[in-house]
């Protein structure tokens, strides 16, 4: 212990006889003076003294302790494969340079947060993902959430929509409206936003392969509501690279999707100043089984690819990079998550500045949305999930997230019920308004452990970037199955650790009880599918089919010409009520389909 600290605690100061049995009285004035004495915690002599003292501690205290009581495990290691020491001291972060590595909130390298006031200025956006059944069902849910204080809309689409099939396609049988809302045409989008002024909300749409089509549908809805494009705020996910890595929802081979995304970047940069045309997502990489480290490294690697895409389209980095945003997962390893978010900001800032020569600070700051981990939820003892989600949400907030989705406790069963979704929202409100964690920025800054872990994650992420480069870049590594294999192996390792009880999931492999699964989960009935099919039939009869054909042919020509921008032609087709499936089919005919590499 340091000498002045010893004094502060009253140790070594003889107590007067009258003090016996009471708390030692200390001279407050003297205390104040001692505290202001300049303490250089990272000076060479101080670090040396700590090293010597730690060796003594190990011999005299630790080894004695261990001789009678062993630790729970011989090796402590997190899922990212990072071995963890018993504790950390200033020696572990001695190489840390405060001004270079941490800096101040709202300033490069943004480790401590991207805004100067963070949550003291404005609480994060509470954004709950919702969407199921028919567009009307989703419209009702969105309006319910808006009435209950949610500040941003987030829409989930069903599998046929995600894969670019209409509700009446044979491939959609049994899947319409199951995991999200069914959208086959502009009509459906109009129904989703009925009574919701799109100029006043920010809307996040979780759509990737057909993101350009859904963006155009949203633009068309805005047009009908009289809202100019430059007023639209929101996000489409669009991140196709992680689809090939993890979520596996694509329409075409990667090159074709990247070309359409290039067109979106160019179009949005010109016309949609407040639209996040891509949300670079680690969430799905993590849910597919990766570690936090892999999630971070693969996601940032994807981010750099989109930057290259914009540069190759002839844009200047500062023209488009400010609109890039991120979407991360937050799992149960509390400190690792906090460190991951801090490392993410620092890496992005550094690479944007040093590799891509960004000059606008907004190109360097990593804005992100977080969703708590769906994979961490258990169907056993589902109420435990409320606790898991709360802990994960807290880590996301301490990591400095800009918006947050909290999962509902019943999601390991089915889509959330209204009651469960409300508790999920309340969880965020409790963190924001009752705990005080939003009052001080980056409260873990300076924690020996968290700073060390932030450095460690950063270092290991760069090792992954090198590996990816050596494979020929992200696209080549996808085609080789590198990411897919890495993720699948980690998922299997995790599962085996659970089977061997090396890793505990409460209620699953420990503290399990006999229980019956609940029966009152939210169900989407097949009526949704029938209704959607019927509507499509009517739409196809009512619209001007010759105009639809002209629009689709025009789109085909644009797809065939790699130099052309395809967004206006998609928008034109959408406005003629060409269906999602019809538009994507034109692409399938031009670009072909994708078969993923085997990774077993």
């Amino acid at each position: 212990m340091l000498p002045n600290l010893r004094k502060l605690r009253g140790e070594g100061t003889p107590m007067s006889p009258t003090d016996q049995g009471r708390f030692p009285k200390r001279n407050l004035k003297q205390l104040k003076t001692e505290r202001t004495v300049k303490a250089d915690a990272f000076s060479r002599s101080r670090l040396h003294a700590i090293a010597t003292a730690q060796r003594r501690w190990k011999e005299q205290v630790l080894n004695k302790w261990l001789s009678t009581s062993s630790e729970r495990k011989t090796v402590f290691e997190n899922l990212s494969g990072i071995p963890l020491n018993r504790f950390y001291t200033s020696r572990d972060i001695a190489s840390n340079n405060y001004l270079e590595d941490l800096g101040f909130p709202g300033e490069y390298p943004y480790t401590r947060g991207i805004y100067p006031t963070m949550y003291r200025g404005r609480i994060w956006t509470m954004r709950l993902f919702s969407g199921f059944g028919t567009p009307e069902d989703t419209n009702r849910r969105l309006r319910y959430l808006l009435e209950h204080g949610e500040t941003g809309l987030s829409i989930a689409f069903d599998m046929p929509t995600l894969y670019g099939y209409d509700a009446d396609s044979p491939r959609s049988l049994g899947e319409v409206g199951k995991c999200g809302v069914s959208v086959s045409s502009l009509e459906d989008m109009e129904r989703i936003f009925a009574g919701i002024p799109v100029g006043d909300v920010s809307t996040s749409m979780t759509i990737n392969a057909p993101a350009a089509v859904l963006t155009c549908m949203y633009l068309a809805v805005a047009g009908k509501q009289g809202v100019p494009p430059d007023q639209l705020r929101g996000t489409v996910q669009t991140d196709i690279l992680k689809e090939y890595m993890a979520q596996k929802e694509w329409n075409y081979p990667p090159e074709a999707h990247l070309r359409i995304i290039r067109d979106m970047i160019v179009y949005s940069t010109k016309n949609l100043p407040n639209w996040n045309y891509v949300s670079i997502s680690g969430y799905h990489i993590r849910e597919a089984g990766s570690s936090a480290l892999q999630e971070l490294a693969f996601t940032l690697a994807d981010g750099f690819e989109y930057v290259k895409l914009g540069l190759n389209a002839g844009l200047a980095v500062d023209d488009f990079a400010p609109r890039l945003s991120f979407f991360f997962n937050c799992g149960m390893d509390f400190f690792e998550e906090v460190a991951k978010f801090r490392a993410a900001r620092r890496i992005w800032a550094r690479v944007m500045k040093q590799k891509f020569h960004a000059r606008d600070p907004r190109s360097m700051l990593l804005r992100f949305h977080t969703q708590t981990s769906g994979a961490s939820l258990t169907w056993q003892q589902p109420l435990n999930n409320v606790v898991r989600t709360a802990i994960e949400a807290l880590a996301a907030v301490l990591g400095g997230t800009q918006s947050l989705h909290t999962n509902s406790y019943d999601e390991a069963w089915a889509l959330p019920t209204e009651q469960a979704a409300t508790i999920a929202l309340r969880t965020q409100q409790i963190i924001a308004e009752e705990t005080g964690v939003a009052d001080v920025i980056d409260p873990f800054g300076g924690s020996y452990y968290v700073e060390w872990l932030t450095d460690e994650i950063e270092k290991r992420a760069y090792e992954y970037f090198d590996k990816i480069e050596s494979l020929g870049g992200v696209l080549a590594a996808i085609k080789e199955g590198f990411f897919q294999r890495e993720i699948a192996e980690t998922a299997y390792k995790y599962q085996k650790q659970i089977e061997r009880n090396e890793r505990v999931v409460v209620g699953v492999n420990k503290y399990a009880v006999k229980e019956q699964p609940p029966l009152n989960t939210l169900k989407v009935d097949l009526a949704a599918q029938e209704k959607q099919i019927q509507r499509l039939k009517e739409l196809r009869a009512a619209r001007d089919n010759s105009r639809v054909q002209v629009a689709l042919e025009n789109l085909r020509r644009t797809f065939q010409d790699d130099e052309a921008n395809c967004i206006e032609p998609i928008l034109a087709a959408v406005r003629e009520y060409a269906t999602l499936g019809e538009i994507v089919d034109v692409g399938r005919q031009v670009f072909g389909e994708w078969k993923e590499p085997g990774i077993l």
Partner: protein
Amino acid sequence: MKAPERKPGAGIRVLVAKPGLNGHDRGALVLCRAFRDAGMEVIYAGLLATPEQVAQMAIDEDVDVVAMSLLNGAHLTAFPKVAAVLRQRGASDIILVGGGIIPEEDKPLLEKEGITGNFGPGTRLSEIIDHIVTRVKKERTHS
């Protein structure tokens, strides 16, 4: 080196499949690895195969078992469709097991179609492997 032990799944050919539109393949890929380590011969159907294609693949590959996983709520449509196609094509001896997000009340409906297990998230891999081994043994003693 340990003496080679006979693994529980030795001699069993299994097709792991996700019939329909569901790319969430974490569970399926974990199962592929677990079945392989249990000694089974594993074939992965890949993504986006239709139920018809899954059934045909099972026949072509002459598997003992098709292990199907869906997390998208389409199990009541997709799983029985695979069963129906197998029956039509005279391959009802192929064992079908299921898993994913399957509500309790759907399980009897699937079992009626011969699809058993219907394991939820968090099920032990060993439980799934035991289930398959037991069903294969039973099937083989019957035929």
